[in-house]
């Protein structure tokens, strides 16, 4: 099996999942992203990213309890996995190397 990579949007969603911690689900993630990126974020897109991340093994999910506010529907809560964290770290390292190379072109 080839390695899984992350798309830009997926990376953002994954980061958001870490930031939100225990309260990460569709709406909260979308809201967080809207605030931080100032982009138009659609729920459907967020969910696709989440399901893809789940399929790639970077997040896990479970159904939360029902609340009154959502018409009685339960939430699916997402948590980051170790593989997810490793992936983000790796991406970060690669980027750091690049930035270092940009700043110190002589090397």
């Amino acid at each position, binding site marked *: 099996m080839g390695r899984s990579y992350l798309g830009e949007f997926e990376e953002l969603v994954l980061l958001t999942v870490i930031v939100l911690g225990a309260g990460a*689900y*569709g*709406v909260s993630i979308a809201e967080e992203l809207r605030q931080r990126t100032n982009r138009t974020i*659609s729920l459907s897109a967020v969910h696709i990213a989440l399901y893809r991340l789940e399929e790639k093994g970077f997040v896990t999910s479970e159904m939360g309890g029902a609340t009154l506010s959502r018409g009685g*529907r339960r939430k699916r809560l997402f948590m980051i996995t170790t593989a997810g964290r490793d992936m983000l770290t790796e991406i970060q390292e690669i980027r750091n190397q690049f930035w270092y190379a940009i700043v110190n072109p002589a090397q």
Partner: protein
Amino acid sequence: MKKQKQAIPPRFAHRLFRLLCPPELFEELEGDMQEQFELDVNRAGEAAARKTYLLEAVKFAKPYYLKRRVAGLLTSRRKTQKKVHRYSPKPLSTAMIKNYLTLARRTIVRYKSYTLINVLGLALGLSCGILIFSLVNYHLGFDKFHANADRVYRITSELHNETVSKFGSVPQPIGAAMRDDYPFVEKVSMLISFGGNISFPSRRDNPKFNDGIAYAEPDFFHILDFPFLIGNPEDALSQPNTAVITERLAEKYFKKDQAMGKSFRLDNKTDFTITGILKNLPENTDIRQEIYLSYPSIKQTTPWLNTWGGILSATQAYVLLKPGTDASKGDQAMAGISTKYYDAKDAKIFKFHLQPLSDIHMNLEFGGAIAKNQLIALSLIGIFLVITACVNFINLATAQALGRSKEIGVRKVMGSMKGQLFWQFIVETGLITLIAFIVAIGLSYLALPFMNEMLSTRVTLDWLKDINQPIFAACLLVVVTFISGSYPGLVLAGFQPITALKGKLTQSQIGGFSIRKGLVIAQFAISQTLLIGTIVITGQMRFNTQTDMGFKKDAIVLMPVPETSPAKQSAMRARFSQLPGVEKVAFLSAPPASPENNFDTGIRYAGRPENEKFTIFYKTGDPEYLSMFGLKLVAGRNLVSSDTTREYLLNETAVEKLGVKSPHEVIGKNVNINGRNGIIVGVMKDFHSKSFRERIDPVCLTTRAADNAQCALKVSNGNLAATLASIQKLWNETNPDYIYSYQFLDEHLQRFYEFDQLILQLMWLFAGVAIFISSLGLYGLISFMVAQKTKEIGVRKTLGAGVGSIVWLFGRQFAHLLVIAFVIAAPIGWWLVDKYLADFQYHIELDLITFIAVLGMTFMIAIVTVGYRSIKAALINPVNALRSE
């Protein structure tokens, strides 16, 4: 606290979302959508929130969700799913369809007799439907494949004498006239067809064949599309003595050899060289000749044809009009032919018209095969049969439903929805229909050759070649399933579970009883009418063959005499007389009665100035004629074999028509028949010269060897096979160039009634089908009644009723229905058979016994059908019947 009005997302958008959202994700996604919506309402107001919601919903139309949505329809589980999300099963989801199929299979296996009866009834109705459809489809598809079909016309003639007679044939010169005179005509071709005797004298074995031939102009193959395999029309058919044959005949005549360039001889006279090969003719064309001879050859073989005054039935003219020609204007212009080519008197008699190609097959006036309204009648019969089969199915199914009411009650209590129950019945019906359909297709394939033989058609059931047939079959399957499944489905699904469980269903919940009765009455009325017809026609047919026609017709063999010179005839006579099994030999033009070779001509009696007002049948024969057929003379003497003095025998009818009182008066008088003078030497006792449909006509008999066309042999009954074999051997020795054929006179006479025979066979068939279907209807009704009256029977039995009185309880009702049906059927049947018999001058009398027999027969059928069910119902232990609560 004041309750705040809850903001609701747009309903349409919500529905769209539900439609697009994969069911297993539905809960979390809907929750998120709802929460987002509530957030938006607080932040931006309801209107904006609704807009966003709609946009969000639309965005779920992404490939990712759509893929999962479709996959969700096909399988209910997904690997990635952590839990099976609960959702309400739609009536037609995969799981439910599986469930329906399982249940349907179980029901079918459990109620075997019910299934069998339903399958048989439906299969019969469906196969009739399929056969009738393929027949109608076949007739509608005639000569449609020609590229220019809409511009092709055939010229027809009308002869305006005292009555107007119409022909699809024309005088031979009309083709050339059309080509020269009318600018709107693009192409013209004559097509003149004959029977042909084809032989191959150049080959050692000299095989002989009888095949139809036609003289055609090269343009014929441009007007109609009969493609050439080898050669082209211009090269192949412009020279005299050239011919084009089909692939099939090339194979038949020359085996594997190449046929091109080979030659054959027509009627032992003219040789033709094969200059082209045609592809085999399609089934759906009325043009059936497979040998086309070049048109110039006709001058040589049939020179007498070239006149405007005579119309030979085999002469047809096809024209291709120029594009955009108004056919009705063209038709009017055809009047010019009459005025230009006929004198003033004949111009009033001969009229010509254009007949569209599509009309040829459907127009009986010009010898078409079948009329459009006959096709419509046939289609109606087909629809009626299919509907009756469906209604019978409904009858049985609803009757069955009473027995299954508990099952339905339980299922409803367990949470079945109406839609699910409905679909379950549709699936059940669909399965039964499918089985019936497969049986029906099998039946149709089996029955097709018989149908083709009976109707002399070439219908094929080739589903790959003709797209109409599979389309029809698919439609039939769906329609029948829905017609027969939906009514029981709706009725059953609509049961109140409580009444269903208590077994308290009543008639009103099951649907009208009188409709069922009406249907059974209608079915039986039709069966009885058909039975009356069948019995009467059978009786008339027996009358036709067994009644004395006034001459002997047994043990007489007829065979053709191709060469009629007196020397040849006496040579044949001498050799045939020596055969041990042959008692008598006679040469003649036609036997006393014959469906063919009847020659009708004028007569002038004893110096009267003009021909008589009637015509007389002219037959020739030698002096053996009378004794051969056992004809009696009432006056005068037999003919004497002589060709110099002409002698005539008349029959009694002829004498009467001449206005002479006694047969003895005409003896020795002069008479002119067919333009030849002679003397009347005797008067024959009347005999039937035609079928029993017609009165006895005036007939005369004379000796004229040149007109003899047949040889009649009286054979002794001992060792017939050996006699026939030696006759054939002798015939072949004396006529080496011709094909031997023979026929017994009584069989020959059967041909008068070929059509009646066909009608009779069809009647038997339809009567059989109708009886079977009405028995099924009856069976459905009795099942229904028995199911309904279980309690009543129980109560009656407890109160001391015997089996007999219980059976009579049902019997009485059915006797009632049958009598009502008979009251309808008898007058209709009477009227129809009376019309049929009126067509015969000599016929059987209608009697009461026929009608009583029909009533008796239907009663027998009813007793057999009803008896078993009602006796079974009567024998049931009343405890069981009453305990069902």
